[in-house]
């Protein structure tokens, strides 16, 4: 989030401006009137399940798909009627789309050749770019002799060498194994910070979006469900759907029993009546059927006998998911058959509870979120 300050200073410098973008394939409308501004130098993610329209939106920014309605503006210039090859964007494709008949250097130089540079200059720039993506000395390597991670780097170098205003990444890491993916996430962040180019990443991996982005747009069914920083999206999801897509969230049924200007009182399943500030939920929400949510780490397992909490209950461990650093316990709420998930950090020397053991759980009303 290093570029956050810079974003605030240059608030007016929008790099990509989308207004009322619509796209249908046949009878199916996949993008339903999206308005979105992405700032210069921002690392922006479009996050959503497959089929939510995120890739189609990205392809319309690239010019590979033509919107049925709406305007795409990049760097203050309307892109309507501008083909993909004339746009200041470059893309890293999900399949990488490495040209199989060309070697690594020829792949990277592909777009640069159009600029008719002297041979030595061309070679110098390709070598510099290969160095940047950690493929030093791979110029003559045939493209079929590359691993998945290396292909990814070639695709990245090939796009970046043209110095695009916006780099578009279509699920670039989904084909890599976990270790390599984490390494590439760091590397993409480093490259983005070094070059200051606007990156737009399409991903279905919420963790990846949280780690890498300055801002995230969560998309469902062709609409943006929520737009915000990773922390806003994780801490204050606007709907049950966003909440369950990002991280793990426990849900309880709730019912508003009284309200005034500053607060509402909600009767929460099993936990009882809880008072929330009125602005925890928008005014126009129906109050009959509310959903109360909390993250596994927002409830505390009272490990020591003398540990105290605002509210507490005891429960029997029904299941343990042990991740090494963390344990996730499945517990049942008092007077309810609903299971919830509560996590505990396995700080050194801490005992990992076993099935059937009774543990005390503490919580307070500020741990809870009210959703519609």
């Amino acid at each position, binding site marked *: 989030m290093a570029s956050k300050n810079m974003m605030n200073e240059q608030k007016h410098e929008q790099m990509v401006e989308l207004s009322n973008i619509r796209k249908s394939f046949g009878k199916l409308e996949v993008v339903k009137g999206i308005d979105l501004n992405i700032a210069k130098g921002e690392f922006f993610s479009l996050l959503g399940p497959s089929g939510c329209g995120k890739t189609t939106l990205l392809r319309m920014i690239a010019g590979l798909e033509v919107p049925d309605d709406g305007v795409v503006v990049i760097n203050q210039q309307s892109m309507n009627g501008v083909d993909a090859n004339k746009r200041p964007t470059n893309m890293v494709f999900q399949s990488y*789309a490495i*040209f199989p008949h060309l070697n690594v250097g020829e792949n990277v130089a592909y777009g640069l050749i159009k600029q008719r540079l002297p041979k030595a200059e061309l070679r110098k720039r390709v070598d510099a770019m290969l160095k940047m993506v950690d493929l030093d000395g791979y110029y003559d390597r045939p493209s079929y002799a590359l691993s998945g991670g290396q292909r990814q780097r070639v695709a990245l170098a090939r796009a970046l060498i*043209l110095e695009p205003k916006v780099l578009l990444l279509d699920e670039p890491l989904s084909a890599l194994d976990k270790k390599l993916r984490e390494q590439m996430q760091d590397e993409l962040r480093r490259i983005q910070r070094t070059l200051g180019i606007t990156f737009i990443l399409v991903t279905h991996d919420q963790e990846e979006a949280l780690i890498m982005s300055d801002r995230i747009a969560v998309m469902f069914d062709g609409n943006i469900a929520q737009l915000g920083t990773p922390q806003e999206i994780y801490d204050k999801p606007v709907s049950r759907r966003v909440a369950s897509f990002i991280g793990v969230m426990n849900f309880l049924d709730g019912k508003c029993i009284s309200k005034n200007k500053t607060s509402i009182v909600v009767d929460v399943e099993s936990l009882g009546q809880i008072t929330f500030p009125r602005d925890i939920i928008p005014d126009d929400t129906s109050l009959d059927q509310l959903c109360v949510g909390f993250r596994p780490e927002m409830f505390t397992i009272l490990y020591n006998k003398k540990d105290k909490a605002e509210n507490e209950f005891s429960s029997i461990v029904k299941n343990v998911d042990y991740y090494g650093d963390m344990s996730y316990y499945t517990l049942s709420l008092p007077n309810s058959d609903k299971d919830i998930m509560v996590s505990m950090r396995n700080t050194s020397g801490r005992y990992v509870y076993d099935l059937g053991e009774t543990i005390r759980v503490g919580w307070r009303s500020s741990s809870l979120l009210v959703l519609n």
Partner: protein
Amino acid sequence: MKKPSVFLFTFVVIYLVFLYAPIMLLPIFAFNDSSIIAFPLSGFTMDWFIGLMSENTLHRALKNSLIIAVTAAVISTCFGILTARAMARHDFIGKRPSFGLIMAPLFLPEIIIGVALLIVLIQLGVSLNIWTVILGHILICTPFSVSILYSAFNNMDRSIEEASLDLGETRFGTFRRVIFPLVKPGVIASILICFTISLDEFVIAFFLTGVEPTLPVYIWAQLRFPSKLPSIMALGFILLLISLILLAVFEYYRRKSEKLIGKS
């Protein structure tokens, strides 16, 4: 490995004998020192091959056949490229019917095509020459070319073309720098197979050839003279060798094409 049953083994042997024994006669009698095609063999000779060198009508027929085969192969492959590309990447009204009609000559009897073309050409007042044969051969070669090239165009990863556009290349530039190099082995395979088909096609050539015979038509004409039979055997042997070489080269490029597209 399981031992094959006696019945299957016998069947395969009989099948292969019927298939290849007649062809094996070609080299045997091509080198036999007798103008009568019969056993026992009377001795080794190269005379029949040497005799071919002074046959002027044969040389004319060979030249005609080569011109026809090369021209028909190149033009049908060009048509094949255009058709295969259109079928693999574009949607338009009447796509399926037109595809069906282009592929139809694969299943039509050649004699029907030959007779139909002959009638049309005569009605139009076109005189028969090697160009009318080329026309007929393009008609029957194009479907082969399309079926070889279609999979090459269709199996190519779409995002490879999009990547080229995205990197600033024009549509034509993308065809020249990416698509064509990737389908090139398929194009070579198509030219070779069309060349082979045209070279030994008899029926259409017989109807449309006019006064300039092609090689198969020449061979057919020579069969009227029993004394020429050993020369035909020699000629047949040469053609057999050329066909085998072409087939091997074709197969090499076909596999290369699959490999290249498969990797993308």
